[in-house]
């Protein structure tokens, strides 16, 4: 006993109850009050879910072409099939819609592989999607070049308009945000002052006001006869508005980077842009991925506000449909459809960001 420590056998690890029964017992029925709570919740779920599923699916109408044929008491999904073209393309000419389809396909080609970690050339597709595709896509859909028929933006609508606005807004507001954030932390007083004013002005005004001003006020200042595309105005408004929000998110990341990182980069002889681009921003942006994605999701959803300046995004086309006496009874179904569509996109975005965060975490445990 007195000379040293006796070797002790390793203790047994705690036993794990495997299987469904074990899981049920430990999670749902561990005590008598948990059991009661579980049963009550099951009862509530059943009483809510059963009628909901009946309405959504089992009693719903899927066959037919007018709402008069919806007589089973459930949801009436006929309008989806009848008006889907309108929901997706708005007033875009039928025979030109292949152009929009190509844009959708290119978008998918660039961004769906981002979900598949081992996809070859994934990084390059992503870069393409943020640089070349916005330009190519714009000319493809707008036309007027390479023999493509010109389709004015007033005819764009539906999901296509929503996606174009959201995509262009995201691609543009991120760099705007980065530059504003760098500007706000600049050592040059003029640049810092301008950035602060820009951010605070855009962030302090509701997006609705921005869009109204873009559509009503800008024409007042332009000489008569000069017009300025309404979609472009909305796009600029959205970009600056969300760019200002993005700037504040990114500034948070910049502030979280230790001073030593700046000094190490400077000591190696890296100038301002290389220091920021190679050392500081990669780390800062990684930290604020959740905030960036949060902003992107808000941007995506707020594109519906363009409704008020007379642009028909997906919500606009759906609303136009339920105004139509032929489909006056499908209000609930129509809004559900819009909500579900938005949810699909924003949820994918959120899942992707979680993946990205996880992947970038590799090897940084101590920092």
């Amino acid at each position, binding site marked *: 006993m007195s000379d040293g420590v006796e070797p002790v056998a390793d203790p047994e690890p705690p036993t794990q109850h495997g299987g469904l029964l074990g899981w049920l017992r430990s999670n749902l029925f561990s005590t008598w009050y948990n059991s009661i709570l579980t049963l009550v919740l099951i009862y509530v779920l059943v009483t809510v879910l059963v009628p909901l599923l009946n309405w959504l699916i089992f009693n719903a109408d899927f066959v037919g072409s007018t709402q008069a044929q919806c007589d089973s008491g459930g949801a009436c999904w006929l309008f989806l099939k009848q008006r889907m073209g309108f929901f997706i393309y708005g007033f875009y000419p039928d025979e030109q819609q292949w152009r929009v389809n190509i844009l959708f396909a290119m978008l998918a080609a660039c961004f769906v592989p981002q979900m598949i970690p081992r996809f070859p050339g994934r990084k390059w597709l992503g870069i393409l999607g943020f640089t070349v595709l916005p330009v190519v896509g714009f000319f493809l859909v707008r036309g007027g070049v390479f023999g493509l028929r010109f389709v004015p933006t007033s005819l764009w609508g539906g999901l296509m308009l929503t996606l174009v606005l959201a995509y262009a807004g995201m691609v543009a507001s991120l760099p705007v945000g980065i530059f504003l954030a760098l500007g706000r932390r600049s050592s040059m007083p003029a640049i810092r002052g301008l950035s602060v004013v820009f951010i605070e002005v855009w962030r302090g005004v509701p997006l609705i006001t921005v869009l109204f001003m873009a559509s009503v006020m800008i024409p007042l200042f332009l000489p008569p006869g000069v017009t300025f595309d309404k979609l472009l105005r909305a796009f600029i408004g959205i970009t600056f508005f969300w760019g200002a929000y993005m700037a504040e998110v990114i500034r948070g990341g910049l502030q979280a980077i*230790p001073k*030593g*990182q700046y*000094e*190490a*980069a*400077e*000591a*190696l*002889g*890296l*100038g301002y842009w*290389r220091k920021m681009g*190679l*050392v500081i921003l*990669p*780390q800062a942006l*990684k930290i604020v991925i959740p905030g960036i994605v949060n902003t992107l999701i808000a941007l995506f959803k707020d594109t519906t506000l363009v409704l008020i300046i007379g642009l028909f995004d997906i919500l606009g086309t759906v609303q136009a449909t339920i105004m139509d006496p032929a489909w006056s009874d499908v209000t609930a179904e129509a809004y559900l459809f819009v909500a579900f569509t938005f949810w699909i996109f924003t949820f994918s975005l959120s899942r992707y960001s979680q993946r990205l965060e996880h992947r*970038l975490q*590799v*090897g*940084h*445990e*101590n*920092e």
Partner: protein
Amino acid sequence: MADDTTQVGDAPPSAAVSAAKNGAVIIRVEDVSKWFGKFLALKRLNLEVSRGERIVICGPSGSGKSTFIRCLNRLEKHQRGHITIDGVELTDDVKNIEQIRSQIGMVFQQFNLFPHLTVMENCCLAPMWVHRVSRKEAEAAAMKYLERVRIPEQAQKYPGQLSGGQQQRVAIARSLCMNPHIMLFDEPTSALDPEMIKEVLEVMVELAQSGMTMLCVTHEMGFAKTVADRVIFMDQGEILEQATPEKFFTNPQNPRTQQFLEQILEH
């Protein structure tokens, strides 16, 4: 007052030691002062460093020794006096400062490796982007220096996966990859666990023996005795004493140096 700053042992001190080896002055500091707000951090410093000279700077915390070596690559700006590196004066001219920084390696107390890059990428970043060296060349050079600091096998790991001592050795290799003429060390072993100090000091001793011009802020008196040509003692922003290590440790002149040495050599 001004005379105090240059108070040293007897007549021409260790300048003779270094001048004997190589006459060319690579760093010249003339009457440099710096304030943080109203606080005088550096008080009329004068110093000349010859090519290949190894200098250890010691002193109590807050004495301005870190601030001083950070002025040499302009991480801090001096407000009065002149600092000349390799014949070029440090001013607000931006191009000039990046040019000079790329020739001065700096090793920090907190390593300051870039956590989002692997060891190899940490080493190649500056050569590729500042010196415009091809990736292949940069990697070959990086491997050479990683071997020199004895961690070539860690090249593909991230800094967060290494121990403190390994990280500091990578930081040294990263600086060497820029082929600097001068190396500055700002308390390189102060943030390390005791058992890792040795591996870093060994690398530094080797570097010193290779003829690199070195300025090292450290409390490792063993290191100072082994490699330093000159030991400088600073307190309250002033250089109070500079001498060869033998003289410095056996026969310090300034009472504050004596007091400081007593305190750190006690344990």
